[in-house]
């Protein structure tokens, strides 16, 4: 009897083992194409890039230098510290100028659309349209609109009394410009992001707002009407309903958009490349732009070694920020 049970156990566990084995083989087959492709075209090149970051590599490989490149970039006395620090500052401004603005406008538009308007489908379609256009081609059109000497924007602003601006080539900080228009002189530290960076941000907001609007709109549509009715019976006002019900219930969408937009902004390249190429005076040279320039325009001065090192410093920063977002904001997200 006991032997029989044991034999049955054996048989069952053998069967289980086989099932696990089969499941494993099946699972590995499922992930195989992706693993192969990601391994060859993402992981392997990343390792290679990391290896490059430990070398002096101008136009060709010169020698192994250990962490010298990282030192040149991160050590305040290092030769590349100033430009990297500047690029980090520009990147932070770019994130601040795009992410909150995009999210704020998108939320407002989504909210108005949600309340039911005639032509909602049409509005939604128009707002989403920029998202599907090529960044390179659309940025070429904006270059035209921003043009200082015959651009449409300056012409339109002239009607509201704003003087002509050199949108894409003005390195002055916008706070400083506003202050000096009112006759106040600001210290250089408070000058703010350059007008050129603001112009690039305007393009970015234009391009991505539709995507966010649509996601917010879907999030709003998903909130059950019962919550609103209950709140109204309790006598809650419009603003209270928005703060206490809409926002918490929308928080997963907001969090999703927040993460995607931040990563996107920290890695932005094409729009800056076309509109300003990092200028004027490096005021739009984000870390991505600096990496590209170091790799492909400053190649002979150890560009490949330094560029690779900068890339991995950027990776660490983006990973750290994303983790921080998950820790801080992630906790407040309400998953019904």
């Amino acid at each position, binding site marked *: 009897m006991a032997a029989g049970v044991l034999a049955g156990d054996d048989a069952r566990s053998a069967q289980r083992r086989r099932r696990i084995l089969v499941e494993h083989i099946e699972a590995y087959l499922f992930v195989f194409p992706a693993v192969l492709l990601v391994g060859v075209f993402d992981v*392997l090149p990343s*390792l*290679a890039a*990391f*290896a*490059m970051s*430990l*070398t002096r590599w*101008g*136009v*060709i*490989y*010169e020698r*192994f230098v250990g962490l010298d490149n990282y030192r040149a970039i991160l050590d305040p006395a290092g*030769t590349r510290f100033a430009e990297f620090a500047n690029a980090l500052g520009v990147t932070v401004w770019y994130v601040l100028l795009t992410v909150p603005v995009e999210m704020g406008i998108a939320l407002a538009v989504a909210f108005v659309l949600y309340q039911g308007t005639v032509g909602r489908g049409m509005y939604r379609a128009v707002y989403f349209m920029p998202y599907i256009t090529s960044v390179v081609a659309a940025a070429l059109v904006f270059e035209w609109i921003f*043009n*200082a*000497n*015959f651009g449409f924007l300056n012409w339109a602003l002239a009607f509201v009394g704003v003087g002509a601006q*050199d949108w*894409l*080539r*003005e*390195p*002055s900080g916008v706070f400083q410009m506003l202050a000096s228009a009112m006759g106040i002189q600001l210290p250089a530290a408070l000058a703010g992001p350059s007008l050129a960076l603001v112009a690039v941000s305007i393009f970015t907001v234009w391009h991505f707002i539709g995507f966010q609007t649509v996601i917010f709109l879907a999030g709003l549509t998903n909130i059950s009407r019962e919550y609103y009715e209950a709140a109204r019976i309790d006598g809650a006002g419009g603003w209270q309903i928005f703060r206490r019900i809409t926002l918490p219930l929308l928080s997963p969408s907001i969090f999703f958009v927040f993460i995607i937009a931040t990563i996107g902004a920290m890695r932005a390249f094409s729009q800056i490349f076309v509109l300003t190429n990092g*200028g*004027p*005076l490096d005021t739009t040279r984000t870390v991505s732009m600096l990496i590209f320039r170091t790799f*492909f*325009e*400053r*190649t*002979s*001065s*150890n560009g490949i070694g330094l560029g690779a090192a900068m890339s991995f410093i950027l990776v660490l920063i983006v990973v750290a920020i994303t983790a921080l977002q998950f820790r801080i904001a992630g906790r407040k997200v309400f998953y019904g």
Partner: protein
Amino acid sequence: MRQLFALSFAAALVIAACGPGGPGDQGAPAKDTEADITLSAPVQAVIWHNQTGASAKNFEDMVAAFNSSNGKGITIKPEVQGNYTQIYQKMLGAIQAGAMPDGVVAVENQVADYAKAGVIVNIDQYIESKKNGLSKESLADIYKPYIDSNRYPQYENKILSFPFIKSLEVNMVNDDLLKELGFTAHPKTWDDFEKMARAAKRVGPDGKVTRWGWAGMGTEAFLAQVLTRGGKILNADGTVGWGGKEGLEALKLYQRCIEEAFCYVPTGFDWQDRFGEGNLLFATGTSTGRPFIRAAFKRPISWSIFGMPTAGGPAQTIQFGGVIAITKSTPERQLAVWEFLKWFTDTAQTAKWSIISGYMPTRASALQDSALKTHWAGPDVQGKQAFDLVPTSAAGPSIRGWQEVRDAIFEALQKVQTKKATPEDALSVAVTKANNVLKENR
């Protein structure tokens, strides 16, 4: 631990695989025979170039003419790869990957980078080759500045590239406007130049400037001013030579021009439109812009091209443009590219190319070409005016890192233009930057 091992292994693998060879690989002079071979079988060679639009079509037509007429079985395949920067970026990848074209259009400091990678051939041996080279007379016929820019001081002054498309930094003037302002001749000194440019400024009823004196203060214009004020581009010790009073005077002129608003600050090529409207007196820029300027004319304007004014220095200007380097491939393909270069820069071809492209011919004998004579006498007088400046032109140095030096100059100009720094401060920052770069690339 295992992962760490895998990682370092992968790293070692990549490093071993990527480096095509140590620096200085090209030191050993190639055997005489390499340039002296005879082509016995058909050979095809690819050239990456930067000609776009109508120029690309014209260039391809010329290549087709060469392919059908060379009698040596050579077929050149031209491929457009974007502008200089984009070609350079492609070459960087191609060098690591070992997938280069046989000939590549570049500017000189890029060629110096390729030389460092050891991937291009020494052209001296082709020029001097008894069998396939250039005769003494033929070599002397090519303008000296055009040959000189292809000698690389970091590589024993060897000729590592050959002239392809050549432009000059020139001044353009609206002669009608000049006359209207009461001036009878083109300015000979920078002071005269400034006086005339200032006089051209006109302000509309709303206080906006509607007519300007000058546009086009760029890096080349700055260097040309340094030369004509008696300065140097590079000192003998390898540091930059434009950091003294000559460079400062040039920046100060620009500063006055901006502050008094007689300078038009273009956002691209829109100065051509202001010129075409008759609202711009002087423009400094590339001699190859001639067709674009004519296209922008709203009414006929009589205009001309003239050389740089001076202030204590010689009458000189900067010449620039594309050269072609020959990459190391097979002796046959290398020779094929050389044969093409020889043909392309020969009298008849360079004259023809000059007519259809607007670039400067490379040889003095091109002047005897009847078609070019007719062209320059009639529709393109300004082409001849620019051409007359070639003998006194000088190229920027053919050294590694020069592009970064140009960036530093550009930054100084931008600071002055946007009033971010005084000419003194802007210049001293640029000099420090440029000298650091040059030191790193020595």
